[in-house]
């Protein structure tokens, strides 16, 4: 058991160290979401705006953008495995007396804590968009963001165990990330679009992550809560779905990593 805990802690510690040392990553974690908010906010307001009655479209999109940032950051955290393999450091990790599952969980934890930090940094935008933050909101938000990013880093790590080059990893990730994000209700209320799109979006597990985070910040009816077979999902139900997704993704990653290396 000791080999797992030590593995988790030491691998996660390094991920965080690297994040803190690379200032550019903190800056980009700010720039990208702002770009999305401005461009999409302005562009889609006319079209999607009427679907989100009662809430300003920017306010509707903001939690979506938060989750998008967190999702992308955590999914790409698997990149560090490919990177380490390419530059040799993975060997140093692999010969240490720590278990393979510890390494995977450590990478996931490190990736999700950095994703969470990025998510928290982005909270500073809330007042400018007219969203009033309370302490409870922030606590719920941090919990959900950690859960979401822990789950999705599992997907990144799984892909990383199969990829030998950074280019390959990036290609596959982009192929996965964009459909997942665009069909997850970041940019539109899932219940108010055409049935075929609803169907796809409701099969996408990310939809529930986005929905949970949105419910933390917004109240009222405005496209909140995804209806599945007539049942309106709350934060708890959403979180359960993401948790189950995460457990399975992480187990598959552990299995794949232990088998390969």
């Amino acid at each position, binding site marked *: 058991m000791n080999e797992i805990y030590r593995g988790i802690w030491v691998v996660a510690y390094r991920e965080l160290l690297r994040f803190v040392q690379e200032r550019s990553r903190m800056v980009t974690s700010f720039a990208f979401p702002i770009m999305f908010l401005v461009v999409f906010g302005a562009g889609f307001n006319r079209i999607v705006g009427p679907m989100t009655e009662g809430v300003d479209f920017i306010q509707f999109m903001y939690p979506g953008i938060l989750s998008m940032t967190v999702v992308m950051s955590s999914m790409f955290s698997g990149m560090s495995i490919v990177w380490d393999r390419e*530059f*040799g450091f993975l060997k140093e990790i692999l*010969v240490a*007396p720590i278990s393979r599952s510890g390494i995977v969980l450590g990478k996931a934890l490190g990736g999700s804590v950095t994703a969470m930090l990025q998510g928290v940094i982005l909270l500073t935008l809330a007042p400018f968009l007219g969203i009033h933050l309370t302490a409870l909101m922030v606590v719920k938000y941090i919990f959900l963001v950690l859960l979401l990013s822990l789950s999705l880093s599992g997907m990144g790590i799984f892909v990383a165990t199969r990829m030998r080059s950074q280019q390959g990893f990036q290609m596959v990730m982009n192929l996965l990330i964009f459909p997942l994000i665009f069909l997850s209700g970041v940019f539109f209320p899932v219940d108010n679009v055409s049935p075929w799109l609803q169907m796809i979006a409701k099969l996408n597990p990310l939809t529930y992550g986005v929905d949970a985070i949105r419910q933390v910040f917004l109240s009222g009816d405005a496209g909140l809560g995804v209806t599945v077979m007539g049942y309106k999902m709350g934060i708890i139900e959403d979180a359960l779905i993401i948790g189950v997704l995460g457990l399975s993704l992480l187990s598959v990653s552990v299995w794949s990593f232990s088998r390969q290396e």
Partner: protein
Amino acid sequence: MNSIQVNRLGKKFGDTEAVKDVSFNVPEGEIFGFLGPNGAGKTTIINVLCTLMSPSSGSASVNGYDVVNQRNEVRRSVGLVFQESTLDEYLSAEQNLLFHAYAYGVPRDVRLQRMKELLNLVDLWDRRKGKTRTYSGGMKRRLEIVRGLIHHPRVLFLDEPTLGLDPQTRRYIWDYVKDIRKNENLTIFLTTHYMDEAEHCDRIAVIDNGRIVAIDTPERLKDDVGGDLVAIKSSDNENAVKELAESWSLETKVQDDLVIFSVPRGDEFLPEFVRKFKGQLLSINVRRPTLEDVFLKLTGRDIRDEEVDEVTQLKQSFKYRHR
């Protein structure tokens, strides 16, 4: 006691047999070298011994721990330096060492003192805060060697420790390695394809095509070639050949204007020879056989034939180091 015991070890990759039926023991405190061309199976054996690969057949133990069933015990008791750099170049030397100490569960009070002691040993203490990507090749190597020592291993594996370094740096690395052996009292297992480096070892195993073809001290391996090589030049080489055959019963070979033969002990042979030789001597040259002669005799080819591989390998290590 033996630090390393290897018994009929074999490793297959698909249909190719990288290591074939290899057995050897390394007693505690020895510097033991694997000498052989690239692709002879040296790295594969190291990978098996440090539990990164499982053997296809046979068994091996390190510090008394089985490399298949007691992986964590083996890992905890060995230090490793790989052929290619395995530093995190975006972290400082200190951070790299700390990572290692945490990963091996080195207690807090030991950690810092040990780091200082080791960094001083290889003269890197003043540069400990620098990111390792700013280090020279030799500095990185030194750092990697002491990183492998933080957790007080009893065996240190060095896979081609001086590959791609210039001759002066290579000599320094060896000075450091010898210091380390003296201070730490450990067993060192290394691989190399440099003949001159193998001379530093207490014992070497010559390995070719996945098989050990000889195993002994460098001195005795060289004796096996047939003693020292003597080359003389006299005013009348034909007579010299005759005289050597008749009075000394030595087989000779004439090459250009030199008469070459080998005797078991050149240093003892010469004074007597000079006194008794009837012809006129113009020059005498005695040389000990080198490990190169050993390798040539054992395998029938020159280790240099393989140097092309080294270029390819260097190119690869360049790819690693320059991003």
